[in-house]
């Protein structure tokens, strides 16, 4: 595969589970500084696509390149170290640790065994935690046990944990699921702030929210890309209306 200027280049990607192709010959490019929203009906392969990019699932064929580095054979933690962050669909935080510890553990230093033993929570770490906590609106909850946070706050915390690592590509799987209207607004603002200097992929169902944040929308259906482009254009596409928006 040739090299590109894109942050992420997915080419001819296929994955099959017992013959069923969850992702079928898919090609997708994400620009730097772009916020891309992926929509599509259930079972379209959206989450599987993120799984493939972050390494949770192995590709059957095709290529995934991040800044022109081939990812398909790489271990998960190495992909993260290259600058790929992924938020899971259900908030995935350390419930027994405090908010501060959740963010501290995500700081990208001391990642080896002996590095972790020697790691000291110095001012650099503390300042970073403080800055991120303010960004995600949890600055006054640093000492709270994470399990006691509301659902929406857990979602923010997980986004914050990713931001601690300064990823170049951020993938968010349904970040506003289970949030109140007010929380959704705050999340939209947060996403707009954090997509500076990095590429962001968001999977979302809420059309009003998508309209608010998306630079470009990709519609997936049965493991393939059905349409791609600006929200208005995609919404007007008869194919899209047929499989998704029309229902």
């Amino acid at each position, binding site marked *: 595969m040739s090299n590109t200027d894109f942050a992420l280049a997915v080419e001819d990607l296929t994955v099959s589970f017992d013959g069923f192709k969850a992702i079928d010959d898919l090609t997708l490019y994400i620009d730097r500084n772009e916020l891309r929203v992926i929509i599509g009906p259930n079972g379209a392969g959206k989450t599987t696509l993120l799984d493939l990019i972050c390494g949770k699932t192995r590709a059957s064929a095709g290529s995934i390149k991040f800044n022109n580095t081939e990812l398909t054979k790489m271990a*998960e*933690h190495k992909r993260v170290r290259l600058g790929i962050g992924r938020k899971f669909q259900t908030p995935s*935080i*350390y*419930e027994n*640790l405090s908010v501060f510890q959740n963010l501290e553990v995500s700081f990208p230093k001391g990642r080896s*065994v002996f590095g972790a*033993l020697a*790691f000291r*929570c110095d001012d650099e770490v503390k300042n970073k935690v403080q800055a991120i906590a303010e960004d995600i609106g949890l600055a006054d909850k640093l000492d709270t046990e994470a399990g006691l946070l509301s659902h929406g706050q857990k979602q923010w915390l997980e986004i914050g944990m990713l931001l601690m690592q300064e990823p170049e590509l951020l993938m968010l799987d349904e970040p506003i699921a289970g949030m109140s209207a007010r929380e959704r607004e705050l999340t939209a603002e947060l996403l707009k702030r954090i997509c500076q200097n990095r590429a962001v992929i968001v999977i979302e169902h809420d059309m009003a929210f998508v309209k608010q944040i998306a630079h470009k929308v990709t519609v997936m259906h049965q493991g393939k890309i059905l349409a791609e482009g600006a929200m208005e254009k995609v919404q007007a596409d008869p194919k899209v209306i047929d499989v998704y928006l029309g229902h």
Partner: protein
Amino acid sequence: MNFIKASIQRYQLGSLLLLVLLLAVVLPLSLDIFRLNLVGKYLTYAFVAVGLVMVWGYGGVLSLGQGVFFGIGGYAMAMFLKLEASDPVSTKIQTTPGIPDFMDWNQITELPTLWLPFKSLPLSLALVVLAPMALAWLISFAMFKRRVGGVYFAIITQAVALICTVLIIGQQGYTGGVNGMTDLKTMLGWDTRTDGAKYVLYYVCVGLLVASIVLCRWVQTSKLGTLLLAMRDKEDRVRFSGYDVSNFKVFIFCLAAALSGIGGAMFALQVGFMSPSFVGIVPSIEMVIFCAVGGRMSLVGAVYGALLVNAGKTLFSESFPDLWLFLMAGLFIGVTMAFPMGLAGLWEEKIRPWWKSRRQALRDAAVKRPAAAAPVVPTATPSEPTLPDGVGSQRA
């Protein structure tokens, strides 16, 4: 002063100091040397229990084969002592003098290569720690890199324990078989069987145990300790935060193995023999019970667990030898059902809050009494403001 206070709190040194006081002062003063030697033997299991707190409590990986590492450490020590006890003079009636008696009985005429390192004390001591770690690394690296965990890992460790027992018993000529290594007498000419030596060995054992607890406490308070807790909760999140999860599990498993090895070596020194009955499945599970009873999140608790269960074992198995195993099983099930965090959990969650609230009530009563004696403004009884922990004790 504040720094000392803060570090005492951070490393939970208070409970550790209490333990040291008990082990190093109270018990030696109140028990005769025979009983103290028994306590010393129990404490060697406490090394394993402390290791299990790290690997099971913190790492979330249950190992049912810690006896293997205890055994390797014990055998490494015993092999050195056995070689010293088998000098040519005291074994001159053998067909081949100068080799351990059981080798002679098994028609072995030359010291096997495997035994050669155990002629040197420093090498033997190094192997007490390194040999268990090497085996632990081999097992855990193979398992954790393939993401084998949970029940499957527990079963595999159990299989390893079984294999080791079979191997030791089967290779009589090299290991002493089912009898193990007996008649251990001296270490570099120092007779380990005298009362004086038993006192010294007891204190060495206590010292090493305390050092192990401090080491583990340091690991717990480092970022690695936080990561272990995080992994136990959401392993995938840790992995997708850029950590190679398996390396951390391998590390903690090797640490626990090294501690178990030290325990085994102290066992061989204090008890004077080593046999496969401390290696297999049953002793390995017993060690997990010590840890569970003491509290699998508490290093100090694990020591109390090992002491209490073993004391109970000695007490009950003297009077009701048949019932002991049932009692042990009942204890394990009872503890995990009723208070899953063991004795330490019982202390932290039930006894301490109860004691605190009682003290608070007493203090409130003391404040109210003079207020009641002044009947002018009865409504203005000053209510004791609730104080943060630590402050109250200064006022009291």
